[in-house]
């Protein structure tokens, strides 16, 4: 979103001085909300994980699903090879992309457009890709560009199905691990997609939306109305089906806000409680899928290990950002008494930091504070959390398969050190497997580094940079990191609504989503056709804390070594200033 045109006016440094004058209550608030959040996540972990495992293993179809299959003319019981699965997925996503592009380009002529005009071609392309790729990068301002039809029939639908696509891919990979000696069949895409929407996302979104309504989030079909304020000025009060869209925005780790200010907007996120609930919604599926994974592979401990690595990385990010924001290094925060620029006073520092870590650790990209205004180290951590490849705990589905890909790298190196050729969950990591994983690991860094380098070197890219010096580099780096990793949050500052950025970031989003998906599905097919090797005392134990440590270290080192040079010229230099 564009921060400089934000409707947000509350968050000025002066207003915040009082709130952060004393640090001690702030720390307790930070710990308190974290404990509350973890308790809530822990409470639903086992039942939701088991429920999702049942969804993907049950042979039964619901009546409404059967109807859907008849409309789509697909046989939900026909097992697909990985390649067919991939083609179905790509075909579906391509159709979605065209539909969104059409809705955006024809908005003027469609009902419920609130009088907004059409998107330009580059903008429509960017938006279509963004929502299909579960990125939800928004170059436009929701309340000033998208009508209700585009929001509901286009964007909100994609918020469901693009999330379901991610979960389907993760489930297909799990099936690859589970199956032994087959011809590479990994499930049925249409069935996985439908079940994820019907049985998981819709019911959860329904309950979530009601909770949000109760906290004060609006839900109506009103146009924006101008009212006179007590002070005598005129203010535009916005209307729209916000709650229904807000809930799936978080639950599906999408992040595209109804309003430009996203979760910083009082009508999207009115109170500290709604804020914590939204963080819960962001984290609940990514943190629960490891349980589903553990149950489906028949070893819950494997799920714990993956969860452990995700949780550890997320926790470190939360701790670092909270510390950075509360300690508030830098001249401006020091003068102001706290790093409150760009943050909501009704949330405060700790809740903003927790939200920032969770939204970048998952591929959500919703924001309740302006990341451009985070302290330099805090901003650097949000960037690094995305660069990890969205695995802490990552997007719905994509977080799990991303972490599993890294687990394979970790197994490949450390597995040799126990004197066996590497294997994970009984699957040998041979030449073809490691090639697929290596390409997966290469794709996103390639998009981020080449994209940022091009933007920084070309006049069209330089034109969008708001601030000179290291912070300008951070702005561009953040944009490409966010796009290629399908996060969608914006650092702000960067004027990204230009044809150059709309096109380049669109390419980064599309490639950053579907190339990894293709590689993951190919790997799932390979694994499904491999025979499973039974575990012995000589097998590398992948469920123990030691392996969790190795996995976390591999993630940090691989990403660190790739991005430290560019980070050292951006956030690192800024932090050390």
């Amino acid at each position, binding site marked *: 979103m564009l921060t400089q045109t934000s409707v947000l006016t509350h968050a000025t440094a002066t207003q915040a001085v009082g709130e952060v004058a004393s640090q001690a209550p702030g720390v307790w608030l930070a710990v308190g909300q974290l404990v509350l959040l973890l308790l809530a996540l822990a409470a639903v972990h086992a039942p939701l994980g088991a429920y999702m495992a049942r969804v993907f293993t049950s042979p039964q179809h619901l009546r409404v699903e059967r109807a859907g299959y008849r409309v789509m003319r697909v046989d939900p019981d026909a097992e697909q090879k990985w390649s067919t699965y991939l083609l179905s997925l790509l075909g579906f996503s391509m159709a979605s992309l065209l539909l969104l592009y059409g809705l955006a380009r024809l908005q003027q002529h469609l009902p419920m457009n609130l009088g907004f005009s059409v998107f330009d071609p580059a903008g429509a392309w960017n938006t279509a890709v963004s929502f299909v790729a579960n990125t939800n990068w928004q170059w436009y301002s929701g309340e000033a560009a998208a009508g209700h039809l585009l929001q509901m029939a286009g964007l909100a639908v994609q918020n469901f199905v693009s999330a379901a696509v991610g979960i389907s891919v993760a489930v297909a990979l799990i099936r690859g691990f589970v199956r032994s000696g087959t011809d590479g069949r990994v499930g049925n895409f249409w069935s996985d997609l439908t079940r994820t929407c019907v049985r998981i996302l819709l019911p959860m979104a329904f309950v979530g939306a009601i909770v949000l309504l109760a906290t004060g989030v609006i839900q109506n079909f009103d146009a924006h109305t101008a009212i006179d304020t007590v002070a005598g000025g005129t203010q535009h009060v916005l209307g729209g089906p916000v709650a229904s869209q807000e809930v799936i925005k978080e639950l599906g780790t999408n992040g595209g806000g109804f309003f430009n200010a996203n979760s910083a907007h009082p009508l999207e996120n009115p109170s500290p409680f709604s804020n914590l609930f939204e963080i819960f919604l962001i984290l609940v599926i990514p943190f629960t899928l490891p349980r589903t994974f553990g149950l489906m592979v028949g070893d819950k401990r494997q799920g714990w290990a993956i969860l452990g690595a995700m949780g550890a990385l997320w926790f470190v990010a939360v701790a670092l950002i909270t510390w950075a924001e509360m300690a508030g290094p830098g001249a401006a925060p020091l003068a102001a008494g706290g790093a409150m620029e760009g943050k909501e006073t009704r949330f405060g520092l700790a809740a903003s930091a927790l939200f920032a870590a969770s939204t970048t650790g998952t591929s959500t990209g919703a924001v309740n504070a302006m990341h451009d205004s985070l302290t330099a180290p805090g901003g650097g951590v949000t960037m690094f959390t995305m660069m990890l490849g969205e695995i802490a705990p990552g997007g719905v589905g994509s977080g799990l398969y991303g972490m599993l890909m890294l687990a394979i790298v970790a197994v*490949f190196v450390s597995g040799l050190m126990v*004197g*066996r050729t590497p294997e994970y969950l009984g699957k040998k990591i041979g030449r073809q497997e490691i090639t697929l994983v290596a390409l997966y690991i*290469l794709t996103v860094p390639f998009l981020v580094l080449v994209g940022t380098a091009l933007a920084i070197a070309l006049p069209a890219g330089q034109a969008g940079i708001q601030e000179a010096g290291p912070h300008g580099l951070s702005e561009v780096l953040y944009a490409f990191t966010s796009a290629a990793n399908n996060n969608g949050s914006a650092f702000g500052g960067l004027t990204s609504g230009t044809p150059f950025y709309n096109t380049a970031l669109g390419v980064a989003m599309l490639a950053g989503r579907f190339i990894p998906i293709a590689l993951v599905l190919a790997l799932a097919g390979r694994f499904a056709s491999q*025979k499973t090797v039974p575990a012995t005392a*000589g*097998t590398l134990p992948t469920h123990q804390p030691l392996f969790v440590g190795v996995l976390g270290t591999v993630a940090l080192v691989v990403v660190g070594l790739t991005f430290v040079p560019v980070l050292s010229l951006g956030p*690192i230099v800024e932090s050390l200033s």
Partner: protein
Amino acid sequence: MAGSPASPGPAGPVGGRKTGPGRGASLSWTQVRAALPGAFRKLDPRELVASPVLFVVELGAVATTLLAAFDPSVFAWAIAVWLWATVLFATLAESVAESRGKAQASSLRATQQQTTARRVVAPSDTLASGTGLASCPTAEVPSSTLAVGDVVVVRAGEIIPGDGDVVEGVASVDESAITGESAPVIRESGGDRSAVTGGTVVLSDTIVVRITAPAGHTFVDRMIALVEGSERQRTPNEIALNILLTSLTIIFLLAVVTLQPFAVYSGSKQSMIVLISLLVCLIPTTIGALLSAIGIAGMDRLVQRNVLAMSGRAVEAAGDVDVLLLDKTGTITYGNRQAADLLTVGDVTTARLAEAARLSSLADETPEGKSIVVLVRERYGMGDRTPAAGAPDHATPATSSGGESTAGTAGAGGADDLTGAEMVPFSAHTRMSGIDLPLPDGRVRRIRKGAGSAVQRWVHSTGAPTSSGPGGTVAEQLAAHVEAVSSSGGTPLVVAEQVGEGPARVLGVVHLKDVVKAGMRERFDELRAMGIRTVMVTGDNAVTARAIAAEAGVDDVLAEATPEDKLALIRREQAGGRLVAMAGDGTNDAPALAQADVGVAMNTGTTAAKEAGNMVDLDSDPTKLIEIVEIGKQLLITRGALTTFSIANDIAKYFAILPAMFMVVFPQLAVLNVMRLSSPESAILSAVVFNALIILVLIPLSLRGVRYRPSSASAMLRRNLLVYGVGGLVAPFVGIKLIDLVISLIPGIG
């Protein structure tokens, strides 16, 4: 295995040839000098391109050399020189590893001298019949012209002209040229010891050999190719690792190439030399340089133990083995049953039984007979010497753990006076053996030993009361002893005697048992800790097999095993996804050897077995299977350890190079210069020098393999992560700092 030759000794390291220079693990100057020409030859980019990491370094070296030539400075030249050194150290590692096999290859080549073969000239059907060939006319032809199917006659003192099977005759053959073992071996037609190897020498007798391999493709040719590494192909895991290293190289290439636009934006444009230095330091040069040396050295470690792996793939598979099929005889137990105990019946004294057992065995040349004599001497002190009769009491089972006592006192007096004694050899009819001794009073003392039923039948035939009579208790005791011995997996040997013409009486039972080799239980415990299941394969019945299995500590038993059972067992394990290793020598082992993932054929075995397996053990020691597994694991661990080390190194290099690159524009980055390196140039050069030297330092380790002690996977991972992960993190901080201290003294850099 059935028909296995006696194993050379208890489990333990088997002395292979220690000939040839540089077989030790350390890197001597002579070795390096000998390997240098090869190292330079390997700089050829066409060869180097197979290893993308090294190829990138070489490109960097060429580029920096050109840059230094056009814009000379001490720094530029120093970097260029050290980049070349990096590539050269890498090729040197491979060259040194290869040179270790060269010495062995040249000694093998010596056996390949051109000889004259005496080829049988006869119609093809006569040749095929394989009988009476020794008397056929022969023609002298050069050995290099022999074709498969030709039949040659080899006499004592002649060199066998090619690989083949003995079709007629039996001879002792000196195979020391290949096995390093000086004791001659017997080769005979038919059976499992018919294979002869070209280049070995017939010491006695004449044999007729049918050639089974054409000249140039013999066993020795293959051995030479293997030890020289000329046929070396990358193994699957090596290829996979190479892919990972290549992708890391691409990632770092990306990071460095895109760094320039960022640097330009930040107003600190970098020189090409600095960027190339950064790239070379980041890509995994250490493991890239040592990867092939590790593979060659792994094969070499097998060769040092006299095992020839026909492919590197087999060595890797050895590390992955889940199930070991071990033959009972010769592997787990000494080849033969040995007397372990004496059990008397009735009022017979132990001394009486011992004496009778010993007397009846003195002339018994079977290992069982000899072991009875040894047992009686050691436990009951009888007959330390047999001066009177000179009976063959000197025989001690070769595999006995006890030493032969020479300082003996005479045991039971004149009991050894065997004058006039008559041996009763074992016959299939009576199923007994024994001795008839004339007593001083003229009567004859007849002692018999044999299977329980046979001896009892003999006792009854002499008129002794049947078991229902007064001797009932004796019979019951005997039956109990026989049952006890049998159920413990042993073989009961009943001893009885008859004095004069009176009724014979049973004295007792000799407990013969398979003796498990010393240290086997510990080895199986180790294997279990490593996650490897051991299955003992034996032709014995289930009761016997289980008893021995329990004693040796193996996990499972395949009793009354036929070759088909063995094959079926391997298939069953493989269907469950497990990798199986086995050793074998007979022709009927061939299908199982071929089916097993690691099949080790004994060199004494048949050609069929040797061709079916993917390794050959020149010492023919089936116990070596365990060592082979350990070598396979050590190879994989070395690869993983050095990869981890290599990647961990990069962290320190960033701390050296990044501040050096950007400190000019962003002075605050000096905080990251944690090593306090003296200048940007010396920081970058120190990292490059460290990067090159660490290869040299690790060459001995890559040739020797990392220390390997059998333990569980998690224990091994913890240890190796600590040594090579944490060590790899810390070492370069120290190393780069030390190098910087030296380099900063160079004018123009410090």
